């Protein structure tokens, strides 16, 4: 068990490698109840969400979710989050556990719209069932017909009698669902999914596999790739930064940065020998120290050692030679396209 954002969580159950492979080829179940939930309600709910986040929430229909960033006035990340549109006047934000209180305070501080804001993290347990067999396993436990739920859409229904929000979202690069329901039912639903998935080889998965899976899928982790010093342009998250939606927190800075160009960009890299570049290791370009690895480690499914790092934009293009300093030795690596892994659709 490790402490993660104030929660005691298992790093692994059967082992990171077996859990990782279960999710890539069969299915895995994650207890992600640590994730925070904030709810915004009222006629001005959309106005507040639009003001504090960089994606265009006006494009969401009821039953749809999107990935977004909670912005500082400097156009950097307070957090990254999923925004779910529950109704025209009700949005559910799923945020990082460690940032939940800061996010709540940030929303309140910038709420010049009189929207109602509630920190509802303690009202939800959240389980993620991920992998190519996730749908058929979950289908056995619910009357909700799952196939029509499109990626990044959600619906309400019962999972073994427990009222749930069932979203086709995830943090693994695989198909799958994240379900939100009352904490009192968490153990029951967890056990039911575990036994329902046993024939398919579903495994319980810990934080270790959650990290290797998201890294392989090239997804950002708050505190690593993104924080209050990084902008969406730098983090290759331009696709969630919608300047054309109108003014929002940080939009002036982000607009200027888009015009002027960025000084650094997130790049994926592969180690060229068997050594492993890990979080925080220095990155060298042409003999000079040029940054740090934001996340790095073995990619169990790709059987390579991979990582992400901020480098000058010219180096971020795939195929550039860089070096990672590993315990004082410069080890060759090469920039590669993100994501490292993309599932066949």
């Amino acid at each position, binding site marked *: 068990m490790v402490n993660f954002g104030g929660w005691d969580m298992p790093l692994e159950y059967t082992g990171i490698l077996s859990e990782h492979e279960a999710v890539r080829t069969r299915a895995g179940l994650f207890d992600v109840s640590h994730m925070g939930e904030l709810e915004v309600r009222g006629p001005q709910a959309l106005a507040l969400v639009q003001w504090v986040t960089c994606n265009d929430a006006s494009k969401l229909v009821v039953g749809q979710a999107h990935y977004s960033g909670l912005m500082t006035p400097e156009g950097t990340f307070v957090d990254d989050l999923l925004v779910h549109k529950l109704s025209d006047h009700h949005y559910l934000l799923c945020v990082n556990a460690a940032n939940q209180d800061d996010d709540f305070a940030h929303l309140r501080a910038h709420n010049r719209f009189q929207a109602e804001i509630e920190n509802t993290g303690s009202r939800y347990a959240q389980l993620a069932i991920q992998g190519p067999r996730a749908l058929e396993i979950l289908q056995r436990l619910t009357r909700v017909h799952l196939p029509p739920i499109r990626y990044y859409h959600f619906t309400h229904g019962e999972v073994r009698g427990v009222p749930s929000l069932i979203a086709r979202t995830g943090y693994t690069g695989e198909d799958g669902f994240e379900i939100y329901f009352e904490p009192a039912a968490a153990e029951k639903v967890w056990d039911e999914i575990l036994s329902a998935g046993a024939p398919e080889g579903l495994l319980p998965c810990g934080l270790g596999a959650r990290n290797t899976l998201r890294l392989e899928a090239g997804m950002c982790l708050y505190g690593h790739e993104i924080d209050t010093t990084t902008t969406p342009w730098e983090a290759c998250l331009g696709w969630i930064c919608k300047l054309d939606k109108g003014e929002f927190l940080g939009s002036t800075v982000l607009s200027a940065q888009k015009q002027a160009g960025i000084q650094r960009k997130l790049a994926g890299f592969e180690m060229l020998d068997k050594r*492993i570049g890990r979080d925080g290791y220095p990155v060298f370009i042409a003999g000079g120290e040029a940054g740090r690895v934001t996340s790095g480690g073995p990619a169990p499914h790709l059987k390579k050692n991979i990582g992400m790092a901020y480098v000058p934009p010219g180096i971020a293009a795939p195929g550039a030679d860089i070096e990672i300093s590993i315990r004082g030795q410069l080890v060759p690596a090469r920039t590669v396209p993100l994501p490292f892994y993309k599932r066949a659709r």
Partner: protein
Amino acid sequence: MYPTDYRYSKEHEWIKVDGAIATLGITDYAQEQLGDVVFVEVPKVGATVKAGAVFGSVESVKAVSEIFSPVSGEISETNPVLAATPETINKDPHGAAWLVKIKMSNPAEVSSLMDAAAYQAFIAEKAKESTA
């Protein structure tokens, strides 16, 4: 679990002494803490090692662990099994997954190491600390 004819270090290495040759590996406790081992790096045959100094590393998916040599000497053999199947460390840490053999220059250094009973008491203490 912990062979009684081995000696153990506080850094969780074991050695088995046979004349002037010490066979070295990491303990079951160490592999358990590391999880799935994916890469092992040790010096080539002929390299010298110093008691108490780092001479290699064992990498798992989640972390890297440096290996300290409990004795001084020269590497006389490395384990070819580990290059292709580093996960052997998780399966048989006290046997097939030995890391190196060292020709000791000062066999007296062995006497400062723990025996199996002392090492087991040592890791029991560690386990208590981590759950405290």
